[in-house]
């Protein structure tokens, strides 16, 4: 197989892989942040706690996208 074509294919696959890896965390962070906003709007006095928990949750969810980012470079 042509070496350049193989490299290009590998790069394209890596990009597609990262795109797929970003779907789940994207949806997850959207849901998470939306619910956090709802919670803060309902109980503004608990906003500090909700915000901290939200960031913690985002950190967990985002980890998957970050692993995808790393794998994109590893590929």
């Amino acid at each position: 197989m042509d070496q350049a074509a193989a490299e290009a294919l590998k790069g394209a696959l890596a990009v597609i892989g990262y795109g797929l890896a970003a779907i789940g965390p994207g949806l997850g962070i959207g849901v998470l942040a939306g619910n956090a906003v709802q919670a803060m709007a309902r109980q503004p006095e608990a906003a500090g706690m909700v915000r901290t928990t939200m960031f913690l949750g985002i950190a967990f969810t985002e980890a998957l996208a970050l692993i995808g980012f790393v794998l994109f470079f590893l590929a």
Partner: protein
Amino acid sequence: MILAFECDAENVAMCAPDDVSVLFEFHPIFESIPWLTRTHFLIVLAALLAIGLMYFGLRKRRLVPGKFQLVAESAFNFVDQGIAKDVIGKGGERYTPYLLSIFLFILFGNMFEVTPLVNFPVTSRMAIPAFLAIVTWFIFVIAGIAKQGLGYFGHLLWPPGVPVGLKPLVGIIEFISTIFVRPFSLAVRLFANLVAGHVMLSLLLGTAGIFVWGFIQGDLGFGKALTGGAWFILGVGIFVFEILVAFLQAYIFTLLSAVYIQTSVHPEH
């Protein structure tokens, strides 16, 4: 020389390097010292800016603050009140020096991305985020051991308040997430955000510069100049967005460090 790599401006819509690391690795300043590059200079500059803000803010300290003092004080209060005491709770002020250090160091490192003529965030080199994430890891693990003894790891592996059947599974997930994923995600989050920002900005603005300059020189057609203008407008939009990202990532790194410390210091929450 706007971009460090060759660009076939006639045939592509946007210049991109074959290997992205040419945007992040610089030639040595002195040929005799191969490791000393611009990056080292910028790392030290970020540290000096953080120190300088506090030094000049507190050199002539007065009860009615001057401009510098006001900036230094708001940075301090932001970290001390907003992050350390708010997130960690009781005893949080003990961690203020560390949190303030990482906040200012990362903030200035990030801000180089949107500083004209510098345009290179030192936090987009893995060395800085990785080191700071490892320091945070040590701090929260040591704080957990100091608070709960070796039971800290026991609580991670055998979490209380979970049905017995699920305990091994949850414990393993919890252990891996706390010990490995936390520092990893902390470092990679900062790194990835700044890398992405730097790549976007340098490619968009660099391509725009090459296309418009080529049009002025007469090498490129009018269509290329229009494309360059579009890239420039997009690049300016992203530039403004990156200012926000630079601040937000410094804040998130500091906040998550505080949250991790809090889970070690007050495990009941």
